[in-house]
């Protein structure tokens, strides 16, 4: 091959100019055989002991049952090793699966259209805010403080880039968004959008009441519904029914493993009016030259490879394979299975709430209706209680003080269909040992 090319050596072929030649010895991990790699990574995996403990961790990443049929199908090489389906003629299968994903997201959210995916729930929110800014030309964003703190942080990262300001709506005593200042804020007509998450970060159902919906609409502000636990869409009123014009969400719950934070799969759904502002890829159904029904990437004039600096977003690679997994999950579950999972989550989380709140020294922080997460006040630093539970082999939940200094005595606990009654008993007896009842009774803290 070198001869055909007409160069004497590989080194000559890849030669670079003198000033930029590599002069350092590379510090790379040593080469291993495949058997050696397996041994090395099994060693790493063993050091992730948290993966096998009893866990009440949720907060935007949920452990749900995933039928093995999903990985058998999703790991087929045709899907796994495909590129973005730009060549529609040889990508009909994947394009159809994405069209089905878009449809599932529409049916779950109650909205007209959905894109082929974005990176995750947090970036979905940021991109949705940009859609809203492009809709009404306003340059401020209003977001509930009960939205996942990581989502709000990412929203801020994106908004800093665009010099957009964010204001926040506080949390009310019952653990939903405090809307009392909303009318005055809307009256300024400065806000492109108001973003509200339901179920919110605390697990509480937070759909705004009709009066608020009407006020938002009337002021020309876009209501963005945020969803971090997509399973709730199977049970609760759709975001469209509570007035959301755009839904920004995370679909990790649909068969995608928690995998230490990723990859997951974000989605954006919206009403038809937003069709040319929605970021990322869209699959459409059309016909081929012979009149056969066929699928194709469409409305690409919105995208960076055509529009460059005037694109609606810079997104190129999205989360297609995770969206495929979620589509398979939804197909396997069907409405019956999905409702069963939702019901099991409601049952488990209520069992947890009932048991925990009966413990001395523990109480539920909020009283709003919730989905599968609860906030437990342990009346002493949550961090210390969680460390004690950890010593007993239990991951008790997320220390809310990490994000909300005012709730530093509170733990966010999730219960899903994978949480057993035995798990609940185990955490409750451990909590009973750990929680300092005396300080609770005297109220000294």
């Amino acid at each position: 091959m070198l001869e055909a090319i007409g160069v004497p050596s590989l080194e000559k072929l890849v030669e670079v100019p003198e000033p930029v030649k590599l002069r350092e010895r590379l510090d790379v991990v040593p080469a291993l055989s495949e058997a050696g790699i397996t041994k090395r990574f099994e060693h790493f995996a063993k050091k992730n002991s948290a993966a096998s403990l009893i866990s009440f961790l949720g907060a935007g990443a949920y452990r749900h049952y995933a039928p093995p049929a999903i990985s058998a199908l999703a790991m087929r090489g045709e899907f796994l090793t495909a590129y973005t389906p730009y060549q529609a003629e040889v990508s009909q299968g994947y394009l159809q699966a994405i069209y089905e994903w878009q449809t599932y997201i529409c049916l779950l959210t109650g909205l007209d259209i959905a894109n082929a995916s974005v990176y995750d729930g947090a970036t979905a929110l940021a991109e949705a805010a940009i859609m809203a800014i492009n809709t009404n030309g306003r340059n401020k964003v209003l977001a509930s403080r009960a939205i996942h703190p990581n989502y709000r942080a990412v929203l801020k990262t994106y908004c800093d880039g665009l010099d957009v300001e964010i204001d926040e709506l506080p949390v009310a005593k019952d653990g939903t968004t405090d809307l009392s200042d909303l009318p005055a804020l809307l009256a300024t007509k400065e806000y492109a959008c108001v973003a509200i998450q339901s179920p919110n970060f605390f697990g509480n159902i937070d759909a705004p009441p009709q009066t608020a919906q009407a006020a938002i609409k009337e002021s020309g502000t876009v209501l963005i519904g945020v969803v971090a636990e997509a399973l709730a869409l199977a049970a609760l009123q759709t975001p469209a029914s509570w007035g959301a014009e755009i839904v920004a969400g995370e679909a990790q719950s649909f068969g995608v493993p928690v995998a230490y934070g990723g990859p997951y799969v974000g989605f954006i759904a919206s009403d038809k009016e937003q069709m040319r502002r929605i970021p990322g890829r869209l699959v459409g159904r059309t016909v081929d030259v012979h009149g056969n029904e066929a699928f194709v990437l469409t409305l690409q004039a919105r995208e960076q490879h055509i529009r460059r600096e005037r694109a609606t977003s810079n997104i190129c690679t999205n989360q297609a394979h995770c969206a495929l997994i979620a589509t398979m999950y939804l197909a396997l579950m069907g409405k019956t299975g999905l409702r069963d999972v939702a019901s099991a989550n409601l049952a488990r989380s209520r069992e947890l709430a009932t048991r925990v709140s009966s413990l001395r020294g523990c109480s539920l922080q909020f009283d709003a209706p919730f989905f599968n997460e609860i906030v437990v006040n342990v009346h002493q630093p949550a961090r210390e209680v969680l460390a004690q539970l950890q010593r007993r082999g239990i991951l008790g939940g997320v220390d809310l003080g990490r994000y909300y200094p005012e709730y530093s005595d509170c733990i966010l606990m999730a219960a899903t269909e994978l949480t057993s009654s035995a798990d609940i008993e185990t955490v409750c007896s451990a909590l009973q040992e750990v929680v300092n009842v005396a300080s609770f009774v005297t109220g000294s803290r």
Partner: protein
Amino acid sequence: MTRLASDHTASPLIFELGQDGRANRYVDAGAPLSDFLPKDTLREELPLPDNTELDVVRHFTRLSQRTFGIDVGFYPLGSCTMKYNPRVNDAMASLPGMRDLHPYAPDELAQGALQVMYELERTFCSLFGMAAFSLNPSAGAHAELAALLIAKAYFKDRGQTHRNKVIVPDTAHGTNPASAAMCGFKVISLKSDERGRVSVEELKKVLGPDTAVCMMTNPNTLGLFEDHIHEIAKAVHDVGGLMYYDGANANALMGNARPGDMGFDLMHLNTHKTFTIPHGGGGAGHGPVGVAAHLVEFLPAPYVRARPKNDGGAHAAPSDKLEFYLDFDMPKSIGPMRSFWSNFAHAVRALAYIYANGAEGLTRVSQLAVLNANYIRVKVREFLETPYDEICRHEFVASAQELKKETGVRALDIAKALLDRGFMAPTMYFPLIVPECLMIEPTETESKETLDAFIAALREIVQTAKSNPEAILAAPQYTVVGRLDETRAARQPDLRWPGH
């Protein structure tokens, strides 16, 4: 030759299959939802189909058979590095200790995951000559955005908010200008010279006190090494600007040259290109962002760090004497780019690939990628124009402009004819400066036999175009559908199943 099943009958949509109640019992059936929540919080209908597992398995198996991947055949897609994805990487990412680890797991119980991220980050730093990488961004474009936000934060920190211009060569990926626009920067497009490279003279004309960043791909999207990169970097630095390296083409120089040594201050990697993470039909990707020392404090949070461990033991491997943690305490950070720390499963895959190669293996990878590209190039120029006729790196561009004048057959037609012959089409009509462009990147994982078969197919297509152009214009004929009516798709958007 690989062919897709030529079955023109469309698969029914999943929504057109099934019967209510045909459910699979994956979890125990629960009580009615209204037992748990007030009625006015619940949705009335959930209009999703119920299907048996067998029907769902057949549905997606059939869809997979109507999809082309690297596992099906050769994928010469320029600037996308469609190399073989070793299965061991997926197996490692699927170990229960990796798959079931929750992002809020305490650091001390997630040491394996943190060590994976740490080793990967350190390796990237050495391979590409950067001071630090953040594994936070989710894909290449996401990392570009992170890098430009870092640049913006850096200039703000230095009181230089007037720097608002980003220079992008006309051969750049579309994500470059789109990312710049998302940071409020003004994009200056720079015309390439007759050698297909950035001209230092032209560059100097647009450089000034308002220059923020110069974004470059090296080798560029023509597959050419920017041989004046040293002077370019110096010119940008002389006016106080930053140099950004788009790592889409990192497979061309990995182990042989480093962006850091070329004067780049910021860069990204597409580990789903260079480090064998499967593209999965368009993601999930993984886009580590790397920075030189003066920009480390602005990286997205969290950042993985290591400190000496007390109980490492005398015989422990050096990395086992460390304890790893996520550092969120970064006051000058641009903030996080995503919900959680990283596309971790992809970090596992990338590190497994690096272990399979080591430094020597990775160096060999880029050498062979360049070898394969040049081999195709010298054969293809026998029957198609190659406008920049010199040694290329991992990819090159050919042009069908003359062929089009002669026969009416365009680059698009050649691409469609390749599909009929069992090959994926090359990247077309990009970069924008080459008319009727075909951009070919074979990668190092293809054998000479595969390259020869591809060259032969391409040669035959060009010959047929000259003798019987209609045969090529009618392609593809052996795929499950023919060319698509894209105008109809855009004018009458049908983006979801409309319902029964």
